[in-house]
């Protein structure tokens, strides 16, 4: 904060007052919702559901044939 001039410091204080007003949610509510969102998406996540990666654009889907 030492680098700030008077106007910047005033803005800083005003910003902190605003940030203090934020309506914080309890972690016992926020965390379960976060984990629920992730768990619901896991089935679509190619790294966690190998079925999604069956059509892998970076792997040859057909074998090589010797002619």
């Amino acid at each position, binding site marked *: *904060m030492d*680098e*700030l001039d*008077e106007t*910047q*410091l*005033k*803005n*800083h*204080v005003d*910003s*902190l*007052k*605003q*940030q*203090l007003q*934020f309506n*914080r*949610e*309890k*972690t*016992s*509510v*926020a*965390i*379960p*919702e*976060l*984990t629920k*969102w*992730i*768990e619901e*998406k*896991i089935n*679509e*996540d*190619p*790294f*966690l559901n190998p079925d*999604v*990666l069956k059509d*892998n*654009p*970076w*792997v040859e889907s057909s074998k090589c044939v010797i002619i």
Partner: protein
Amino acid sequence: MGEMEQMKKEAEALKTQIEAARKAVHDTDMASAASGVAPAPRVQLKTRRNLKGHLAKIYAMHWSTDNRLMVSASQDGKLLIWDSHSGNKVNAVPLKSSWVMTCAYAPSGNLVASGGLDNMCTVYNLKTPVIKTVKELDAHTGYLSCARFLSDTEVLTASGDTTCALWDLETGKQKTVFLNHVGDCMCLSLSPDMNSFVSGACDSLAKLWDIRDGQCKQTFLGHTSDINAISFYPGGNAIITGSDDCTCKMYDLRADQELITYQDAALNSGVTSLALSMSGRLIFAGYDDFNCNIWDSLKGEKVGVLSGHDNRVSCTGVPPDGMCVCTGSWDSFLKIWN
């Protein structure tokens, strides 16, 4: 007491109150709340493509929304557009300044941007018969560390001058300047709903901003050194940061606090970059020690490592469909893994 001293005391008092408010809502921690979740399996990925073409350190890469094309930036003075499926280079954009630190692909696929020690963000049109410079966004008084397109008409930038800015591409002027960091801004990430973004800076803080009103809404503490990488969780309620203090952290936006730190006693290299898998369950974090470590975001454990680069991993990116992860390195190569 002088006015300045008065205000400094007030600032400290407010910070203490904010910490108290955070403690008051901290009625459980991640370890307890996620105890019922099964751990993520060990992740072992193969290198599917080794993209050779750059002649110097790669500093940045960004996927196109088509999940196939990507842009990379190197201090050889070029942006390369790659078709990641074939491994072919689709375009090469010569840069006026080779000291590039960031690159970005517009959601439309029409434009790309770059910037760095020239303090400017240069936007190029890929769709004209010859690639043209559309605009040079010139107003930052420090290096450009990160740029992201909101659309073909708006760009967000983060700069070493400690500010972030929203630019109008038609006028080439800053519409909004985001002031609050006291250290170089190093990275930014747009929220999924595009109404806000988060920035990480050398003041060890991450900040959440409202794009339209320009205000800093929340500040996240905990890191003890520069924050080099930051990403929104796909669901939008949390962010992940990566720092020179060798750790990554998850912060919950609604509880306004740190939930978990991803660290390992054996790891003593800074985090340079990070990307999340599509569900957010896996964090791919690039480190100075040439590796990219894979973390289980809910359990805080390392579940895999991507080794193969011969120098620092400087950038990582997962395309929107989550089908792979790309790592870019100072060894001048990009690798695609899945």
